């Protein structure tokens, strides 16, 4: 059964059509890579999938129901890593992760070792985020994916500023997620070695 299905999605911003007729569907274990030129609307598409940007026309359905029917339930099922890391320079790594956990509705600060080990952040746990390098911040941002087990990952250029080792770890994490029946949508134009089950090329359709 299709978990996430997108039908004839349109994105219009400031009176301009960015893309239209975007349709695809994902089931458990699927990995979709969305490619396209600059300004073709990749990020907009991902933000629409996350429910951050209104859908101009068409539908996005989760488990057969439009996501707008029960946004809160849908949000519990997804993690979004955009091109901003969403980290606060003033907090430590531990505080950041606990804050994210809280935002995801989990009251208790739980065990963080599991999600820290995936991107090698154990040694940095009590460091203030201010002192982390760009790559380390990105790894911290990505570790949010493993904080709570959710079925759908939405990633916007996840490979940015990662070194080779970390990129391999990212690919491993994504593969493991898919092997466990999760779904991943990646927007990227860098080949970091992901083996998608589906590809989607965004092209700029004639504007109206």
């Amino acid at each position: 059964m299709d978990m996430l299905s997108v039908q004839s999605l349109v994105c219009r911003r400031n009176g301009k059509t960015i893309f239209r007729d975007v349709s695809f569907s994902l089931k458990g274990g699927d990995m979709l890579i969305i490619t396209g030129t600059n300004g073709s609307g990749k990020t907009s598409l991902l933000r629409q999938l996350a429910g951050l940007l209104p859908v101009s026309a068409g539908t996005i359905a989760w488990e057969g129901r439009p996501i707008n029917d029960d946004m809160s339930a849908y949000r519990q099922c997804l993690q979004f890593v955009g091109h901003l890391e969403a980290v606060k320079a003033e907090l430590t790594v531990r505080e950041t992760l606990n804050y994210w956990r809280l935002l995801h509705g989990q009251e208790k600060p739980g065990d963080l070792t599991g999600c820290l080990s995936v991107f090698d952040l154990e040694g940095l746990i009590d460091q203030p985020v201010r002192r982390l390098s760009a790559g380390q911040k990105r790894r911290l941002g990505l570790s949010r994916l493993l904080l709570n087990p959710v079925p759908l990952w939405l990633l916007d250029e996840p490979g940015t500023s990662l070194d080779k080792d970390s990129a391999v770890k990212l690919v491993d994490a994504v593969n493991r997620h898919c092997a466990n029946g999760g779904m991943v949508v990646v927007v990227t134009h860098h080949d970091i070695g992901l083996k998608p089950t589906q590809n989607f090329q965004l092209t700029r359709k004639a504007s109206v």
Partner: protein
Amino acid sequence: MKLFLRLLANDLRLLARHKSEWATLMLFFVTVIVLLPFALGPEPELLSRLAPGLIWIAVLLMSLLALDRLFLQDARDGTLDLIRLSPLPLPLLVFSKVMAQIIGMLAGLMLMLPLAGLLLGMEIRQLCVLAASLLLGVPSLVLVGGIVAAVTVAVQRGTALLTLLLTPFYIPILIFAVAATDASAMGGSIRPQLLLEAAILCFLLPLAPLVTAAALKQSD
């Protein structure tokens, strides 16, 4: 409830770590107060009569600076996306943020108020009335300011729009707040004015977070 307290604790921690920002705000407040006697002339009677109004103006100016950053920082570093993506109700998250800002501003003001009162030659009783009017008025400022800050973030406009939109809402709060201190100076009852301030606050407290959340949802 416990969840809310945890959110609030986190927001307060974030505010508390912005030490230089708070120092700037408080310094700004004190500078305005210090400069006033030079501009108005050193007549103790005149100064102490004008003091409540002057302090309130300084608070309003300071709050414009503080509110500008309420959601802007979150929008810039991407945290706003996470807040909007949270399965928790957005008004709750907004309320926690606004409450943290209120607590921070009131704490800072209560620390600075004796100094400001001293510099402007206010009596203790007058100072107490002013403190009461600030305690009731500043939360309303921040609640309204939160709405406007959310709107300016949503339409991606800066401080100019914030100031322009906020000023009309500040006027009623200012009028009732200063009326209370005036009434006390004349020897009248301050109750009606403070009650009116409290009424404004009670009106805003449940509504403002809902409107703020609705405005934040429009941002992309």
